[in-house]
């Protein structure tokens, strides 16, 4: 199982070099991976259908209790099969769609990377692991949307999708942490056993809201829906795979996965069903006013995601059943329709509905496939989507509350789907042949194979639904609900209210299609008033953030060392003083410890030298006086028995003096550069920093909240560290990792100095 998930990452690395050898065959060869994974997962169907869920675990970070564990239950299996099956078809499709593209090898790498990440997401049995794979899907989606990185729109859309989904992902991580804190574990199955405790916990609502932010951004729910139409900048194989069939359903997956853990509350119902309802209506409306094939498909996808979200929010067994069937059917026909849109674009050079027409004679095969997929979109019998819609309507009609508004919304959704299906089928293929940028002809095998397989499986599964009901749907429904469920799917339910509503929506859909001329212009004008507000909010937010950042940066990063030091010192003083005042009652300062004459004399010398530094007119004198301060401090270290510190301090002083001498050479003469006011401000900051440090040292001297760790080091330095010099044993052994970090930082700092001094632009070099 681990190999199955991780193989994609390995293949992804190898894909570009493979492409260099196999050129046109790469897509077909690479599709062997998803095909074999599909078969591998398919072999689990009998076991999982028997009600078992399999867990494969491998300890990863045992000290943090994180293991690399994957669980395969009905829900995961359904998703895994969709990911691998559609993945195979899309890989083949891409080889035709992007044939000859110079960066095709890289494209395959991203695509396979996505597939592996998505598999990891749906199989992870630990929420942190799920989060890691979830973010990987966002990143691979970013790379794929921005694949044509020379176009600005593609780059912008990629960034938009990444920012929206990863902002949601971060919120989700916070939600997972809260969930883990209230449940005491990050493991999904263990969390499920504590569902009652979690739902009553005071962190329930914050955790739920944060997790929903992740799920809603990923699944493009209102008001985060706008990144998905933008993501249509990606090459069509990507739109078909990520932005319709699989990745956008990750949010649905997460909600389904968490519904036995967090579901069943009022908050769950209102938040999720409400978001789904608004999304489905809003994007159905936007679909109506779109004229681009891919945009129409994008908005109907969002609308369908809204339906699925709403059904999970409702959460009754009937609703969950309908959701699973609908999800499966949608992945099949929407994937097919996207690939068809891509094939049309590939052969004609346009995907604007108004510029297409009469393609029926030129590409009869694609017309037939479109008919089948279009009927699926319109949920006609005897297709799988018809069964899904019947179940959907029945589940809604069974509801006690809100039956009428929710049912009405779904009727609106089906009406729009019917109208869109007719637009997608009739407008490009019928009527007079219109001139297009390319001469249209039947697409190649690689371009029609994918949509044909997907559309046909919708038909086959619709005619013979019992196998899929037993093998996939029932286990998935059981996985979501957490209790075993037996689902039976039938094409013919008799003359039920649901059938009546279906017929009604078909009728309305046809009317909507025929009257398009009448309402189209008016709707576009209405939409302009409010429909693009979420996008505008996003741009305004992003611009505001960038403006704020650049203003803050120009304020803080003045390029003057003096300002940096002042800001750092002032901030430290303010923050520490604030904390001291807040927690002040716990801290007392005992009287000054006794000190010898020698110590007192040393202190006087240090203070005098420090005063000279501030008062002198000569830079060289100031450097020398600073050296006296440093040497005095080293002597103090020696008095208190820390020869290592004293040596280090002394050497640092020496090197600093050399550095300062080197720098002094370049500096202008020491003059009174600052005004009186600035000097007073400087001295206030400096003195308060000094006072604060003194107070802190006195406090540290008096207060011991915990037994000092130095005893441990004293006891174990020789035993465990084989050394009598405790300071050194701490540096290289006990706290070796810190030292490793420090030397890394030192190296980077040296590289930074080197780069600043040596790699300047030629025009800056002439400056003194």
């Amino acid at each position, binding site marked *: 199982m681990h190999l199955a998930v991780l193989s994609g990452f390995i293949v992804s690395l190898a894909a570009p070099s493979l492409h260099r050898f196999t050129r046109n065959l790469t897509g077909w060869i690479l599709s062997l991976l998803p095909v074999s994974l599909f078969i591998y997962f398919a072999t689990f169907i009998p076991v999982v259908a028997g009600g078992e869920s399999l867990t494969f675990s491998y300890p990863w970070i045992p000290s943090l209790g994180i293991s690399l564990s994957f669980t395969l239950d009905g829900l995961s299996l359904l998703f895994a099969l969709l990911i691998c099956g559609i993945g195979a078809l899309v890989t083949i499709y891409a080889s035709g769609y992007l044939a000859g593209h110079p960066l095709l090898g890289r494209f395959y790498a991203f695509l396979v990377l996505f597939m592996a990440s998505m598999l990891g997401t749906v199989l992870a049995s630990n929420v942190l692991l799920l989060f890691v794979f979830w973010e990987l899907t966002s990143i691979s989606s970013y790379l794929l949307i921005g694949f044509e990185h020379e176009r600005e729109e593609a780059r912008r859309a990629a960034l938009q999708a990444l920012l929206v989904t990863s902002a949601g992902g971060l919120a989700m991580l916070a939600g997972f942490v809260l969930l883990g804190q209230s449940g005491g574990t990050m493991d999904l199955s263990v969390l499920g056993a504590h569902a009652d405790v979690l739902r009553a916990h005071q962190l329930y609502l914050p955790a739920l809201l944060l997790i929903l932010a992740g799920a809603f951004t990923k699944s493009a729910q209102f008001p985060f829906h706008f990144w998905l139409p933008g993501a249509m900048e990606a090459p069509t194989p990507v739109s078909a795979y990520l932005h319709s069939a699989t990745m956008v359903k990750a949010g649905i997956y997460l909600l389904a996965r968490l519904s036995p853990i967090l579901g069943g509350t009022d908050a769950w119902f209102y938040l999720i069903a409400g978001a789904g309802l608004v999304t489905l209506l809003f994007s159905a409306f936007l679909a109506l006013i779109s004229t681009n094939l891919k945009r129409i498909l994008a908005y109907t996808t969002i609308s369908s995601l809204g339906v699925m979200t709403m059904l999970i929010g409702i959460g009754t067994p009937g609703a969950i059943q309908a959701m699973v069937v609908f999800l499966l059917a949608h992945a099949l026909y929407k994937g097919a329709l996207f690939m068809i849109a891509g094939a049309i674009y590939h052969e004609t050079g346009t995907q604007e509905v108004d510029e297409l027409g009469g393609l029926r004679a030129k590409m009869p095969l694609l017309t037939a496939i479109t008919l089948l997929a279009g009927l699926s979109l319109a949920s006609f019998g005897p297709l799988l989507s018809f069964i899904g819609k019947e179940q959907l309507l029945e589940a809604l009609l069974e509801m006690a509350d809100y039956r009428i508004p929710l049912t009405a919304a779904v009727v609106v959704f089906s009406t729009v789907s019917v109208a869109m299906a007719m637009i997608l089928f009739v407008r490009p293929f019928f009527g007079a042949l219109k001139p297009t940028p390319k001469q249209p002809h039947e697409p190649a095998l690689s371009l029609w194979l994918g949509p044909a397989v997907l559309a046909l499986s919708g038909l086959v599964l619709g005619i013979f639904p019992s196998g899929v009901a037993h093998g996939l749907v029932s286990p998935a429904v059981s996985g979501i609900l957490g209790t075993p469920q037996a689902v039976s799917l039938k094409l013919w339910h008799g003359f039920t209210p649901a059938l009546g509503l279906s017929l009604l929506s078909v009728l309305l859909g046809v009317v909507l299609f025929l009257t398009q001329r009448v309402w189209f212009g008016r709707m576009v004008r209405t939409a302009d008033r409010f429909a693009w507000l979420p996008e505008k909010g996003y741009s305004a937010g992003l611009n505001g953030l960038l403006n704020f950042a650049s203003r803050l940066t120009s304020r803080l990063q003045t390029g003057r060392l003096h300002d940096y030091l002042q800001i750092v010192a002032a901030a430290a003083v303010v923050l520490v003083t604030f904390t001291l005042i807040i927690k002040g009652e716990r801290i007392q300062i005992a009287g000054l410890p006794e000190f010898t004459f020698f110590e007192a004399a040393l202190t006087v010398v240090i203070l005098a030298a420090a005063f000279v530094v501030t008062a002198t007119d000569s830079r060289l004198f100031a450097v020398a006086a600073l050296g006296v301060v440093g040497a005095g401090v080293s002597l103090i270290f020696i008095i208190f028995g820390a*020869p*290592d510190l004293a*040596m*280090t301090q002394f*050497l*640092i002083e*020496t*090197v600093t003096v*050399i*550095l300062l001498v*080197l*720098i002094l050479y*370049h500096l202008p003469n020491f003059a009174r550069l600052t005004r009186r006011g600035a000097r007073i401000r400087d001295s206030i900051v400096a003195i308060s920093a000094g006072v604060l440090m003194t107070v802190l040292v006195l406090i540290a001297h008096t207060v011991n909240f915990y037994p000092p760790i130095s005893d441990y080091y004293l006891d174990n330095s020789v035993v*465990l*560290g*084989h*050394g*009598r*010099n405790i*300071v*050194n*044993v701490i*540096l*290289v*052994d006990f706290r*070796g*990792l810190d*030292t*490793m970090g420090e*030397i*890394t930082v*030192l*190296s980077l*700092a*040296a*590289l930074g*100095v*080197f780069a600043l*001094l*040596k790699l300047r632009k030629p025009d800056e070099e002439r400056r003194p």
Partner: protein
Amino acid sequence: MRSPILRTAARYLLPLMLLFSVFLLLRGHNEPGGGFIAGLVAAAPFALYALAYGVPAARSALHVELHTLIGSGLLIAVLTGMASWLSGKPFLSGLWPGEDLPFIGDLGLGSPVIFDIGVFLVVMGVSLMVIFSLAEE
């Protein structure tokens, strides 16, 4: 700077200070010293050399490129840390292979000492890189 005193001192101090730095490095585990201090001590004579003869002369006296010095130091530190994996211990656990040698007893040679050599190289390289870069301005 053309001072003959400085030039002569720089030339004679160089091997002495280097020797002293190695002494500090190796005794560091039991007596005052260690990689950090030794690195600074090793950097000082080269800085002095650069003041007396110029940076190019100091660089050629060093024989190694500074970034090689820093990089190999980091590499030694990381590799020492990873060596702990070979014996199934977490990253950077101290390994003391010479603990129970027959007749000799505890040799006192362990992975922390080698780690300290890495620290030594990094500190020496970093301070020299900063000093040389500034001096060449």
